[in-house]
């Protein structure tokens, strides 16, 4: 199972990024091999609109099964949900903490977006 976690850095100890669409990086963690890679989400930090949608698309390209996030807007939810990716709501300080909470069943699966869309 592959998990996408928004992060402000490149390691498991890096701060968990509370934003989804405008997260700096994503850690793609493989639960079977316990290995991870980092993908940059830099292009969406300055996107005028549609950052959540585009980020969801980038995450999908990594063929992930699960996204852990503090916040997920309606359009990102629609894209991920359509592709069958499960979205879990989790609050954490670091990527590792988010991952641990998910492993210990302390993350809550979202059945809808938990924040409003926010475009200018």
């Amino acid at each position, binding site marked *: 199972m592959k998990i996408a976690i928004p992060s402000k850095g490149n390691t498991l100890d890096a701060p968990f990024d509370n934003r989804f669409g405008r997260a700096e990086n994503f850690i793609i963690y493989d639960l079977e091999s316990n290995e991870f890679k980092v993908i940059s989400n830099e292009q969406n930090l300055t996107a005028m609109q549609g950052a959540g949608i585009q980020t*969801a*698309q980038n995450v*999908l390209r990594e063929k992930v099964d699960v996204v852990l996030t503090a916040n997920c807007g309606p*359009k990102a939810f629609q*894209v991920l949900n359509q*592709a069958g990716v499960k979205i879990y709501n989790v609050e954490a300080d670091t990527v590792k903490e988010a991952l641990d909470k998910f492993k210990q069943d302390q993350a809550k699966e979202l059945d809808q977006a938990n924040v409003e869309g926010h475009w200018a």
Partner: protein
Amino acid sequence: MIIAVASGKGGTGKTTLTVNLARVLMEKAKIYVLDCDVEEPNVHLFLQVQKIEDKIVNKSVPELEPEICSGCLECVKMCQFNALVEVKAKPMVFSELCHSCGGCVEVCPNKALTEKDFPIGKVSIYEDERYVFVEGRLDVGQPMSPPVIKAVKKHLPNDPKAIAIIDAPPGTSCPVIASLHGADFILLVTEPTPFGLHDLDLAVKTVKELKIPMGVVVNRVQAIPNLITKYCTQNQIPLLLHLPLDQEAARLYSQGKILVDHLPEFKEKFQTIVPKIQKILQEVQHANQN
């Protein structure tokens, strides 16, 4: 002549200026009033005019025929506005984000995308013997107002002698540019506060880019000179009018009443605006000829 009323800062008196100017001008000829503040139109609160019709404003968005789509994703690569995304090797359309460029339909090799109408707002047309009043109204939840603003501006008079007043939205972004484009003169309304000055400067810089002659109206004035008069002198921008801070004016406004109908000193002031604009435009024309 098209006069657009704009301001950097919101709440400085754009609508007050628009409806009172229209009121003093309509004594001589029928006046066109266009409410281009389509996210929060409010001219209708002051001008009671008979409604003629409502028109739906649509924009073109792509519609996907999934059976014909080969999944090449050329459309997704083409879209610069994230309105098309790849989900399971097929494009997914987000109509709200679409800027109607038609690029996706153009690049689709299988013609799986066609353009369809997507409603985003409406234009209401009102008319009587005094006014032609056109209001744009963006639907709640729609992020893009320029198509509605452009639909309102299609109702500008063809006769260059007719006077049209455009009530623009606040700020200096795309909806403002869409409203001001094509105007002959721009009235910038501000107030003598640091906020008013800060946003006036942004508005002045925007209008300079558009190369349209402008003049400033200062509203809610308590003392002259003030920080706006100083700014206008320094930057050589014509200051056309001071409107005093007046409790009676505020009371009338809150009741949806037109100031010049009740306050003769305001009427005298509003009557000076168009002659001053005509003088500036003549000077500009003269300067351009030399």
